[in-house]
């Protein structure tokens, strides 16, 4: 590790001032499960490191007026253990429950996962599936945007829109109404734990009282730079009765889309175009089970 100065501010305001003051070459650290490894391997060489772990004000899970708000410093372990998230937001529960190992989940934070914007980020894939908003703060003030917009932006690291002196403080999304909406996540990985996702697939589906699909959103992580959307598959489902058979009809569309998107990397597409379908079969079965529409036997 190259030398750096270290600060551990006690408040967000103090952290933002320090970040601004050192914005030429600063890194913030939360759980450290990405950053400490990068420092150790000299892939990251900041002059100043600012610890966020003392910012207890960013460690919370709150449900207010139908909106779920999760502070950036909340760990994967805390999200996985939260009863409301487990019951109402399966996609996020499942994603956080399966990150790395117990030790990594005790350290790693949802804010770190979103800010890292890794191809294989499971929290990221789940939050994008939920069409979540992120709140960013700097000395210039606060801005809020969709995660899609956050990821499309070119900020300090080019991985997302974050400026060098900007903190991600919160991720938020509408609390699903589980009588009509189900969310699910399935991760294909090489080992049971520690495995970085090979593919992590997420879905949100809403049906009306007659079981007709009124909304569908499907995303898969680790297929491209950012969680991949499947708009044609979603459009195929909306307006139809949600059944396993109808859902299976989207798989050829998905196959072709993954093939097309990964044309330049034929070695990876060979299995990915097949395995993405296996992942979504599991997701579909879980969604139908949660909505009480169909029990799929495999």
């Amino acid at each position, binding site marked *: 590790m190259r030398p750096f100065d270290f600060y*551990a501010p006690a408040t967000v305001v103090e952290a933002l001032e320090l970040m601004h003051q050192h914005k030429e070459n600063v890194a913030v650290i939360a759980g450290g*499960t990405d950053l400490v490894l990068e420092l*150790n391997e000299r892939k990251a060489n900041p002059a100043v490191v600012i*610890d966020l772990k*003392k910012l207890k004000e960013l460690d919370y899970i709150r449900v207010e007026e139908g909106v779920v708000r999760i502070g950036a410093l909340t760990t994967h*372990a805390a999200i996985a253990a939260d009863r409301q998230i487990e019951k109402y937001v399966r996609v996020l529960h499942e994603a956080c429950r399966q990150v790395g*190992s*117990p*030790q990594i989940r005790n350290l790693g934070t949802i804010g770190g996962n979103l800010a890292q914007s890794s191809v294989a980020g499971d929290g990221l894939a789940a939050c994008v599936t939920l069409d979540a908003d992120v709140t960013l703060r700097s000395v210039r003030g606060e801005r809020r945007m969709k995660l899609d917009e956050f990821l499309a932006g070119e900020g300090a690291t080019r991985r997302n829109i974050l400026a060098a002196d900007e903190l991600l403080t919160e991720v938020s999304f509408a609390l699903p109404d589980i009588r009509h909406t189900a969310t699910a996540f399935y991760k294909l990985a090489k080992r049971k734990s520690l495995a970085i996702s090979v593919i992590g697939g997420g879905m949100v589906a809403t049906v009306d009282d007659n079981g007709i699909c009124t909304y569908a959103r499907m995303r898969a992580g680790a297929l491209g730079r950012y969680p991949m959307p499947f708009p044609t598959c979603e459009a195929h489902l909306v307006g139809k009765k949600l059944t396993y058979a109808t859902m299976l009809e989207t798989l050829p569309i998905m196959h072709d889309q993954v093939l097309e998107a990964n044309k330049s990397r034929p070695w990876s597409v060979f299995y990915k175009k097949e395995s993405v379908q296996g992942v979504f079969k599991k997701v579909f079965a879980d969604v139908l089970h949660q909505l009480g529409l169909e029990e799929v036997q495999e």
Partner: protein
Amino acid sequence: MNKITVHCTVNHKPVSVEIEPNKRLLDMLRVNLGLTSVKEGCSEGECGACTVIYNGEPVTSCCILAGQAEGADIITLEGVSVDGKPDVVQQAFIESGAIQCGFCIPGMILTAEALLMKNPHPTMEQIKEAMSGNLCRCTGYKKIEEAVALAASRM
């Protein structure tokens, strides 16, 4: 680079350590405090050999900067034994024949201790899940899981 002073509790005693900020908790424990039971395996969060109990939870000390440990309560294997004698978990590992080369064992024992502190009567499934972040190249895990179950039966 300005040195920092880290104040924390290690094995039930308050300590303060003057250290360069570009050191990990793993380095601070091994080099500055001489607690060499904390092993460095992969250096990237994968193997669990560097596991310590940190504010009651098992974490990999290779992923934490020393400065982040300010105010933390840390337990290493050295803080587990009672009056120099093996505690329940250590005794169960010995009796179960769960130790071969031993490199992974400090991390294994601390992960098991953290599990049993929270959940003194875990199921085999819960034991497997809790131990899944600790890799062992020798034993094949079965005897380690049995050792944790044996310790639990004596809690």
